[in-house]
């Protein structure tokens, strides 16, 4: 029962870039799960889109030997987060479960955090979110709808974590490894996205992050993210020799 108690987990994600096929299912799943406003053409043109997770695409090599490379990027939930100390109202802080948390009702919309974030995963609501009438009843009741003027970002689907820990405590059991899945990781068809508890040495993510391909994004900034990436394996190159894998 002890491990279902609050604060006994260190939630994190391991992203196996080698498995990512760039299908964007995670993006859509996140959009639907977290009541993210629709990125209409108008918003795209103004570069005001909101997507808590995005799949970045890079081209490697020159035509005709060009290869597409995909990397899903969401809030890295940094242990040493640049967004946290700049918030004047403590709307974003690090909680005892290893997550960087955004408290919508505290946020006053200074946007300092978004300017501080090197991963560009924080999004500001420039407008009141609106959905077409046909989508009104699709909103997730477990997730607050963010109004105009506040910042939002990936929450590691904290409502799902809360739900699982509640049912575990109700049943008097522990949260089983893999019981908590974020919207993106449950939608991923190739299991490139894996969510779990780093405090448990036997969990799937704890074992995966011991892989020699592991690296963290922009680690020169020393943000110590809770999202670990596993580098792409390229048949032409040695493992871990890519620019992104220079860490290991």
């Amino acid at each position: 029962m002890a491990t279902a108690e609050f604060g006994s987990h260190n939630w994190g994600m391991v992203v196996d870039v080698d498995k990512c096929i760039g299908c964007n299912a995670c993006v859509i799943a996140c959009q639907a799960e977290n009541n993210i406003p629709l990125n209409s053409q108008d918003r795209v043109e103004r570069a005001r889109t909101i997507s808590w997770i995005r799949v970045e695409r890079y081209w490697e090599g020159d035509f005709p030997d060009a290869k597409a490379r995909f990397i899903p990027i969401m809030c890295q939930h940094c242990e040493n987060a640049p967004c946290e100390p700049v918030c004047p109202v403590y709307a974003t802080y690090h909680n005892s479960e290893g997550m960087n948390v955004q408290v919508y009702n505290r946020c006053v919309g200074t946007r300092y955090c978004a300017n501080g974030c090197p991963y560009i995963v924080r999004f500001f609501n420039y407008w009141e979110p609106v959905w077409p009438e046909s989508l009104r009843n699709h909103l997730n009741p477990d997730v607050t709808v963010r109004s105009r003027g506040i910042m939002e970002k990936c929450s590691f689907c904290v409502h799902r974590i809360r739900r699982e820990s509640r049912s575990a405590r109700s049943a008097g059991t522990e949260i089983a490894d893999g019981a908590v899945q974020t919207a993106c990781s449950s939608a991923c068809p190739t299991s490139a996205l894996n969510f779990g508890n780093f405090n448990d040495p036997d969990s799937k993510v704890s074992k995966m992050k011991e892989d020699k391909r592991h690296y963290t994004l922009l680690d020169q900034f020393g943000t110590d993210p809770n999202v670990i990436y596993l580098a792409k394996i390229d048949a032409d190159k040695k493992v871990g020799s890519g620019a992104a894998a220079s860490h290991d």
Partner: protein
Amino acid sequence: MLVPVLAIGGLGVVAVMGVVAAFVITGWIGQPIPVLGFEQTFDQPIDFPHTVHASLKQLDHVPADGQAMEGLGLDCTFCHRTVTTQANAGVPPVGFCATCHQVIGADGNPQLDILRDAADIIGDDGPEPVNWQRVHRLPDHVRFVHEPHIRYLTANPSEVKNTTDGVATGPSGVCSTCHGNVAAMEQVEQVEPLKMGQCVDCHRDNGAPTDCVACHH
């Protein structure tokens, strides 16, 4: 508003400012004084007496046939069925009320006629929902789930606050902690402030998480 205030002079200004100050101070501490639509009781479409259904005591309520009666002492979960398992306590559908009230209660009782009409027992306009007014409402940025609170208080009866005229054991006995003595209310009103300070105090006293995302996500 300003013109008559100026016309009656400084005393009127002081009086208006006093009302405003009283509103702000009471609103900060608990419930604001009931002006400007800030009443904590609502006129329901049917004068549903919780006393008759939930209380175990002799009632002032006299039904149409003129005999004084005792409350039925129904468990809260008899009607609010999902409170022990889900986030919402749940308001029973009209058909659920009608399972009893198609036979119980005098014919021609005007309040029961509204219910029977809604349940399509009388009248010919088909079934329709009853538009109950919600009394206890938390802001949209709070995710409150009944289930863990009922579970904890049922396991720790010493933490239950307020007394109830209704059933005092099990889930029913714990509801009074936040909802007050509903079994004694002819018309339900919110008696506890149900503000974040009250939530956090109780969470702190009982070792529940006080992390922001416990409720705000």
